[in-house]
Every structure is written in structure tokens, then in C-alpha cells.
């Protein structure tokens, strides 16, 4: 187990280094001078020179990269081309909004997927099973932003129950936050729920065919006890991975839904930085999300190895 953890840590560190290289190279791919592009047509030479020097773009490429990695390691991701604020501050300010949306979405997804996936497997072939399979097939095919638009149409336009977009801080106004978070969280949570339902169903079905389940049945245990005590314990181990991966992707990738609902999270920040051609902020947001994604995957692998010791032996 110890060797497995060390090996995964080293692998993740190497990948993270590669991630910094990709993020760094993004700026180099910009055709022309990124500072000039960011400043637009109206600027004075002094501002231009100061920003260029401050961004380190006047130095050789290798030096720039080493400096970027060195600064990133200490939490310094440069300064915004637009506002001059530190990128780290800007990105971290947006994290709570994304975090609250992602966690609400994953809770909603689990509330739907667990009962549906388990019942669908236990009553395989029933009408409920067919309904669950249709739900998961439709859920993975529907664009989340279209779901969002349909949600706005129904719950804001027709029923006038919920605000169509916007955000209120959870700390300042829990009720306001709740009314604003429901639609975007349900929008992204539904896609996660459909993936999780499919996975939980197949995982439970696989365990149901194991010998120890047949033995438990043969002993005369009640079906509820067999499912709760023997099947779920084993079936939910691989599900942990998928739940965490879904959470990781929610933390970093709900750009479109955040834009649609004007939710001021990392996704919206990424979009705004693209529109404003504020490349350091774009780099910072992408780096933070990729690092989070990598960290969650690392945690999942370690947790999975702990729950199922066969993994670390492979």
C-alpha cells in the first residue's frame, strides 16, 4: 500500500509538471504579442512596457517557464492583464461559488442515482429497470446547457418559481443562495445522475451474480439483508471512483452552465478571461482546475486501493 501511494504521488507530480508546461505554452501559442492583444488599440508605451516586463515576456522561453513553475509553486500565478490584481486572488475568490454549485449538484445526483441504480439492478428486467435505463441513456445524451434553458423556461418563465440566473452568497443569504443554486445544480446534477445510475446498476448486477450472494440467499437471509449487508458493501467500492471523478469534473468544467446562469465561479471566470483576452487569468484558472482534477483523482486511487487491497497489488 505504501509503495503504491508513493508511486501514485510521483506519477501525479510528473503529470502536474506536464500540466504547467501545457498551461505555460498556451500563452506562447497566442498569435502575435499577447500583451498588445490584451491592451487593445488604445494604450501608452509605458503601460505596455511595464506589463510586458511584469509578465516576464521579455525573457528567454526556458527562463520564463522555470520562473512560471517556481512562482506557481509558491502560489504566485502572475497578475491580470486587465486589472493588475494577482491571479491567485482572483481565482480563489471564485472558488467558493463553484464549490457550492458542484457539491449541491453531486448531492442531488446521488439522491437520484443511488435508489434508482440499486432498485434497477435488484429488479432487473422490471418496468422500473427499463425506466432507469431510459433515464440514464437520455441523461448522457442531453446537453446540460439545453437542460438549463428548458429549466429557465419552465421554472422561471412559466411557473415563476425560481430566478432565471444570478447568485447570492451562501453566508450572506442562505435562502437567496438556495433559490439561485437549484436550477444550475439540477442541470449539471442530472447528467451526473444518469452516469452514476448506469454505473451503480452495472456494479450491483455484477455483485449479485457472485457466489457469496448465492450463499447468503441459500442460508435463508432476507433479500433486504442480502442487498444491504452483502451486495451494497461490495458494489459501492467502484462507485466511489465514479462519484469522485464526477465531482472533480463538476469542480472544473461547468463553464457553460455557469455562463448560462451567470454563476460567478471558476467556469464563468474562464469564459470572462477568454472574452477579455486576459491570458494570465485564463492560465491561472486552467492550472487550478487541472491541479484540482489531478488531486481528486489521486485521492480516489488511494481511497480505492484502501477499500480494495487488490488494486495496490496490480
Amino acid at each position, binding site marked *: 500500500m505504501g509503495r503504491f501511494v508513493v508511486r501514485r504521488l510521483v506519477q501525479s507530480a510528473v503529470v502536474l509538471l506536464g500540466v504547467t508546461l501545457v498551461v505555460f505554452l498556451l500563452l506562447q501559442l497566442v498569435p502575435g504579442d499577447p500583451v498588445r492583444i490584451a491592451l487593445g488599440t488604445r494604450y501608452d508605451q509605458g503601460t505596455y512596457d511595464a506589463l510586458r516586463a511584469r509578465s516576464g515576456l521579455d525573457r528567454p522561453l526556458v527562463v520564463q517557464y522555470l520562473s512560471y513553475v517556481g512562482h506557481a509553486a509558491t502560489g504566485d500565478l502572475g497578475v491580470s492583464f486587465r486589472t493588475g490584481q494577482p491571479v491567485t486572488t482572483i481565482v480563489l475568490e471564485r472558488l467558493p461559488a463553484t464549490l457550492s454549485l458542484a457539491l449541491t449538484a453531486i448531492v442531488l445526483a446521488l439522491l437520484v442515482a443511488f435508489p434508482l441504480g440499486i432498485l434497477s439492478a435488484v429488479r432487473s428486467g422490471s418496468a422500473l429497470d427499463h425506466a432507469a435505463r431510459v433515464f440514464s441513456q437520455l441523461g448522457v445524451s442531453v446537453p446540460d446547457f439545453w437542460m438549463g434553458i428548458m429549466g429557465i423556461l419552465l421554472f422561471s418563465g412559466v411557473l415563476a418559481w425560481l430566478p432565471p440566473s444570478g447568485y447570492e452568497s451562501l453566508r450572506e443569504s442562505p435562502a437567496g443562495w438556495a433559490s439561485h443554486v437549484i436550477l444550475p445544480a439540477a442541470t449539471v446534477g442530472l447528467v451526473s445522475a444518469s452516469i452514476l445510475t448506469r454505473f451503480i446498476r452495472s456494479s450491483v448486477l455484477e455483485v449479485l451474480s457472485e457466489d457469496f450472494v448465492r450463499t447468503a440467499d441459500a442460508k435463508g437471509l432476507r433479500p433486504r439483508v442480502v442487498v444491504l449487508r452483502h451486495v451494497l458493501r461490495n458494489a459501492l467500492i467502484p462507485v466511489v471512483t465514479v462519484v469522485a471523478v464526477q465531482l472533480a469534473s463538476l469542480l472544473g468544467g461547468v*463553464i457553460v452552465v455557469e455562463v448560462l446562469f451567470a454563476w460567478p465561479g471558476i467556469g464563468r471566470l474562464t469564459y470572462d478571461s477568454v472574452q477579455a483576452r486576459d491570458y494570465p487569468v485564463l492560465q491561472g484558472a486552467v492550472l487550478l482546475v487541472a491541479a484540482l482534477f489531478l488531486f481528486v483523482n489521486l485521492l480516489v486511487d488511494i481511497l480505492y486501493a484502501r477499500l480494495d487491497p487488490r488494486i495496490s497489488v496490480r
Partner: protein
Amino acid sequence: MSDHESTFRRAVSTLRRDPLAVIGVVVLVVLVVVGVLGPWLAPYGTNDVDVDNMLAHPSAAHPFGTDELGRDVFSRVIVAARVSLEVAVVSVGLALAVGVLIGLVAGYYRGWADNLLMRCMDVLFAFPVLLLAVAIVAVLGPGLLTAMVAIGVVYAPIFARVTRASVLSVREQVFVRAAVSIGTSDARIMRRHVLPNIAAPLIVQTSLSLAFAILSEAALSFLGLGVQPPAPSWGRMLYDGRGFVTDAWWLGVFPGAAIFVTVLAFNLVGDALRDVLDPRQLTLSEARRSTR
């Protein structure tokens, strides 16, 4: 019958026996026909502005209504099918070409080449799909071509992984060792013996990736980073119509339904193919590589 033919025949016979897959194939055939003949099938020009008919309800003259400029939504939805299919096919083709080449070299030669190439793929895998695509388009500039390249780049690692895993098992087969022993060149072995034997998982991955690529293109266009106006695209139509959607529901419903039906059709076909050609391919890989 060669292995290559048998894989193809198995795929066809699978699709014919599965009613959902048949529906998927029929929808895709209709979409391709609409995509090819779109400009001739559309009753109006995609950019014909009619200021007297702005935001008109669906009617016999305009089955999907009109948008905020009075343009016929039905015509735009039809013509946009070509764009979506084009982006999906080109970007997945690019991902397939690059991913298969990398996976083939990594799996066949193993050693340092395998390590280097697959670590590079791991790095690309560390980014959420849409985020990386957005970042690439942001620096290269928005447009159809850059959207295709960006989607191709973000989906290449999954093809590399699928290819490498398959090559690792095929290269240990007796027929490959026999080919090596009679001095056949590596390139010929890979082309003639390895590639035909890893076709099944690649066919499955291609069909599922086409669905993801359609969603990614729609998302990029929704963010204004894909197809540029006035050319119609389903994602962009949703973006443009979002401000009017509570007053003009048709602007939100029809372009989104077109994306949904297309993605569903690709998924139905992909799932049916996977059930027969590559049942071991885990849903986990899908979950790890969702469209977000």
C-alpha cells in the same frame, strides 16, 4: 473471411438485431441526408432577415418560428446539421489518427517511447475536456477550424489509451511473433497484422466519441468560440436565443432538441456496438471522459 471483414460483419449484424440501434442508424442516415442537402431542403435562406416577422410563433409558414431578426429557425436548424456533423467527423477523425498512431507506437515498442508518449497523454487527460478545448480555441482564435482542432486534441488521449491497451495484447499473439521471425518490417506488422485486430474497440470508441464531439462543438459554439455568426450552428442559436427564451420558447427548444436527438442516435449505435464488439470496455472510462 479475414478478421477485418468479420469485425465489420459482426458490427452490421449487431445493429440490425437491436431495435434501438436501428432507430439510431435511421436517425443518423436522415441527419446525413439533411446535412448534405440542407441548403436545398431549407425553405428560406439561413440569413434572410424579415423585420415584420420577428419572434413569430411556429406556424405553417415557419414550422419552428422565427428568431429575433425574423430569420426562419427551421431553415437554420436544418443547415446547421451539416456544421455539427462536419465538426464531429473531422475532429474525431483527427483524434483517431493521432491517438491510434501514438497508441500503436507506444504499445508496440513499449520501453521509453511508451513511457514518454503515454505520460504526454496523461497530461492532456488531466484537463477537463471542455476547459482544455476552450483554452486552445481562446489562444488560437475562435472559428470552425480551431474548434475542430481543439476537439481533436482533447479526444486524442482516449484513442491512444484504447489503442495501446489493445496493441499490448495483440503483439503477444503467435501470428505477430511469426511475422517478426520471418523478418517482416515493424511498419508492415503494425499495418497488416496489428491494426485489423484492434478495430473492434476503435469502432466502439469512434461512435461514442462522435456523440461527445457533437456536444463539445455545441458547447464551444454556445460560448461563442465555435462557428462564427452569421453561419448557423445549434449551440450558437441557443446562445443567441437565451435572452428571449421566456418570451419565445421555440428559440430554446428546437436547436437543443436537434443536438439531443443527434447525440442520442450516436450513443444508441455506440452502446449497441460496444455490447457485442467490446463488452469489456468499462463505463468508467466514459465517466472519466465526460463532455465537461
